């Protein structure tokens, strides 16, 4: 007798759940393969090849949840874990005063596969390490560079989801990313500049297309320029933000507050709640009429476009903010019904077989406008152009934020001039988005992915992609990113 198939393991778990009298149950079996090649200071510091296999069983019994998971995928362990999940759910039910009701979802039977042109497993390790060594060599070719880093990463997830409702889904998903950075030292002051591909559901073609050694020339040069750049003078500036930078601003100040579980208090003890309380839905002016934020978990290549979420709900597209008004949440089957929505938006995701799925920000994009980049800059007398991600921090209701960036240029009379350092801007989320008076056209739209979005206890890493064209914000408060004694 051979090893049982994942279908057979799933059937075994679901039989136990049904026999226990639970109203709902599901099983996720997952095998993840991750390769991380990491370079540091002209050497390959580590090559890691991780395989992670296991399964998790989720049970709803008398309106209360239980979840159990194990990395031992065997005929003995699967029924034990299913029984344990039922037993834990019964314990939860014993003190529950409110029952979980799941929003309806059609039964789905499907298989989802990431289209890949170059499977990263077919690319030799020698090719990957040579690419990183070459990139770091170029970085260190620039006088003043004292540290460098370079990385290639990919992960493949094979997953099966099956529920007592009859949904059965198979996934073969891939994501990849490449990155470089350089740290320059000048007169005792140091600064780091970086470049990375977005994390996307693509194959090694993403890394090849990024031309890391070519980008290294620019990155090294700009790292040195950044270290020598004058510090910004505090004050109010017009800001033009590039798509990569905006991806983080959107994520923190728009994405997280639009998670309905936060708005309902589920994350009050850790990630926090949301200023977008349920009474604001449909009426709250989040931003200016230039601001339309669209959630789209159907866009090919993006991290949250997985066909279905971990509730077995089909991925969808909807508005979070339309013409500046807050109109939609990210939801799962549990919380959707709490605000009277008939169907989940399909945002329930776990970061592994061993984690409970929780509401996650969707792929979210700022809808493009009509301006060219030159038009955005041309109307700025005194401003700052910001590229990339830097320091970021935001309060637990997502009102008060502070963002840095990876690189900054002074804009004077409509022209980008020299670099600045230590630029930090801060504000209150709706005030900031209401100061947006222009978004560039779709030809400048770029996507950036996140794989380390922290939420939940124990902490989980969420994956999603945000897209934008450059956008302009008026009279934003900028402070210097260092404290004078």
């Amino acid at each position, binding site marked *: 007798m051979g090893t049982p198939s994942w279908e057979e393991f799933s059937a075994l778990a679901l039989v136990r759940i049904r026999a226990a009298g639970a109203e709902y149950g599901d099983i996720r079996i997952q095998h993840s393969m991750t390769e991380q090649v990491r370079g540091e200071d002209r*050497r*390959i*510091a*580590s*090559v*890691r*090849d*991780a*395989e*992670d296999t296991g399964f998790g069983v989720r049970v709803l019994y008398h309106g209360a949840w239980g*979840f*159990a998971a*194990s*990395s*031992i*995928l065997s005929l003995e*362990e699967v029924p034990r874990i299913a029984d344990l999940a039922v*037993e*834990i*759910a*019964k*314990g*939860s039910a*014993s*003190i529950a*005063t*409110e029952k979980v009701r799941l929003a309806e979802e059609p039964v789905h039977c499907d298989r989802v596969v990431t289209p890949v042109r170059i499977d990263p497993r077919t690319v030799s*390790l*020698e090719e990957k*390490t040579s690419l990183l060594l070459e990139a770091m060599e170029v970085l260190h070719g620039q006088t003043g560079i*004292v*540290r460098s880093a370079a990385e290639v990463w990919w992960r493949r997830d094979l997953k099966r989801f099956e529920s007592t409702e009859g949904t059965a889904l198979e996934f073969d998903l891939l994501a990849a990313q490449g990155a470089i950075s350089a*740290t320059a*030292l000048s007169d*005792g002051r*140091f600064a780091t500049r970086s470049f990375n591909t977005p994390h996307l559901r693509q194959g090694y073609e993403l890394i090849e297309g990024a031309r890391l050694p070519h980008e290294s020339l620019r990155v090294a040069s700009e790292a040195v320029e950044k270290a020598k750049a004058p510090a910004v003078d505090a004050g109010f500036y017009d800001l033009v933000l590039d798509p990569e930078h905006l991806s983080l601003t959107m994520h923190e100040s728009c994405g997280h507050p639009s998670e309905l579980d936060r708005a309902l*208090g589920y994350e*009050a*003890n850790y990630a926090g709640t949301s200023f977008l309380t349920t009474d604001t839905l449909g009426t709250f002016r989040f931003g200016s009429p230039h601001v339309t934020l669209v959630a789209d978990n159907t866009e090919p290549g993006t991290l949250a476009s997985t066909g279905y979420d971990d509730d077995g709900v089909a991925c969808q597209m909807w508005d979070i903010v339309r013409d500046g008004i807050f109109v939609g949440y990210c939801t799962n089957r549990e919380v959707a019904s709490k605000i009277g929505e008939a169907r989940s938006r399909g945002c329930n995701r776990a970061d592994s077989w061993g*984690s409970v799925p929780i509401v996650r920000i969707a792929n979210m994009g700022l809808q493009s406008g009509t301006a060219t980049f030159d038009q955005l800059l041309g109307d700025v007398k005194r401003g700052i152009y910001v590229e990339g991600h830097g*320091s*970021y*921090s*935001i*309060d*637990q*209701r997502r*009102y*008060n934020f*502070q963002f840095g960036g990876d690189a900054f240029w002074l804009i004077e009379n409509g022209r980008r001039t020299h670099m600045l350092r*230590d630029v*930090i801007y*801060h504000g209150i989320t709706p005030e900031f988005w209401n100061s947006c008076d222009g978004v560039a056209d779709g030809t400048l739209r770029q996507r950036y992915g996140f794989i380390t979005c922290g939420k939940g*206890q*124990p902490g989980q890493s969420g994956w999603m992609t945000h897209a934008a064209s450059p956008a302009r914000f008026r009279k934003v408060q900028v*402070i210097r*990113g*260092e*404290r004078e*004694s």
Partner: protein
Amino acid sequence: MSITAAKTWPKMTSREEFRFLADLILARSSGDETTVTLQDLHAGTTRFANNHVVQNVDVRRGTLAVTVAFGARHGTASATDFTAGSVLETLARAEQIARVTPEDPEHLAPPEPEPFAVRETARPETMAAGPSRRLEYANEAIGLCRMEHLLAAGVVTSSVSSVGVASNNGLFGYETRTDARFSITVQAGDATGWNAAAHRSIDHLKVQERTLAAIDKAKRGCEPRELPAGPYPVVLEPAAVAGLWTCLIRALDAKSYQKGVSPFSGRLGERVVDKRLTLNNSPDHTDLLGVGFTFQGLPSGPSSWIDSGLLRQLAYDRFTANVQGIKTISTLEAPILSVAGAVSGSTKDLISQTDRAILVSNLWYIRPVNLNDLTLTGMTRDGTFLIEKGEIVCAVKNFRFHDSPLRVFQEIRAATAPMEAVTAETGKMLVPAMALPRLHFSSVTRF
């Protein structure tokens, strides 16, 4: 509640089983050097919000990692499947990587074997705790809040892990570790109060005491006043001190120091904080989470990092230590920050001695802004109050701070003895509550 206690089957990987797995891998390895590490974790979490259990979880995850080196070429592979076939396949993957990866000029052979300290890293009461114990604690916290018509959100976790490291040079370490945690946020309308604990023993979580403290904070936090941003004298509770010191400790990297890209560059042996401050690693302290060894196979022991304000120790990787001629690499997994001289008995005493200051219960989302001078930013959270003439007079709206611990801790006005502190963003530490002359608040939020 009739959940059976945590079942012991399948058992955690024992010392003998780890030795068997390690010996199998080491015997079959073709590498010049081979190291095997084990982390076998059985963890449970009960999470609650709005006075209801929202997650109730039990997870078993074992991970075995193999690092192989041929000369200076090395590679690592890991797997969660401990069957013989999978273990040997993991070895083969590590060998394959090590054969083709470029030589690493910083590669070093595994550390020489030495006896590791035997510490009480596992407590039987935590090992025995299962879903029912966690649910009992969650229910206790919820019940206390319900009685006050307040909302509770929080988490109870307990875990046991088997941890091992073995190399072909005879290095061998194995340890069982337990960990129990409780944290709670109490909501009274817009006001929140928070408290948290982490300990090897689940008996030491003090759920009732901590829940009542969080309730008290939440009740006091109603109707906050808005004060203008700017520099203020502050009284920092231990959690807030731990948040700032966690960032300071992370900046002690020796390689960055040597390359001149550290806020401490050139300052080893110099005074970096108030001369009354001393930071030690104390892995034998029963209230800390000390270990016998690291995953690199290095022993953990008592060590001095900052002595009377003077920077004495950096966090060395093995290569940098070797270059610098450092024989013993100090670890800092069990930090105690203490203040010499007369100390106040409690945070309450500090408040009573304070003419005017902001009392900060906790800091949140602390991130570096500028690593040149270690300027950080972050928000106050879950209990920010104005102290006047020795008393808390009102709650105030939360501030964003923008300052460096290297400035903030230059002068301490008063402090307590070290107390337990843990937050969502820090490890467990023992740190004092402190009264400080200045923390720069750069802006205010809406609540």
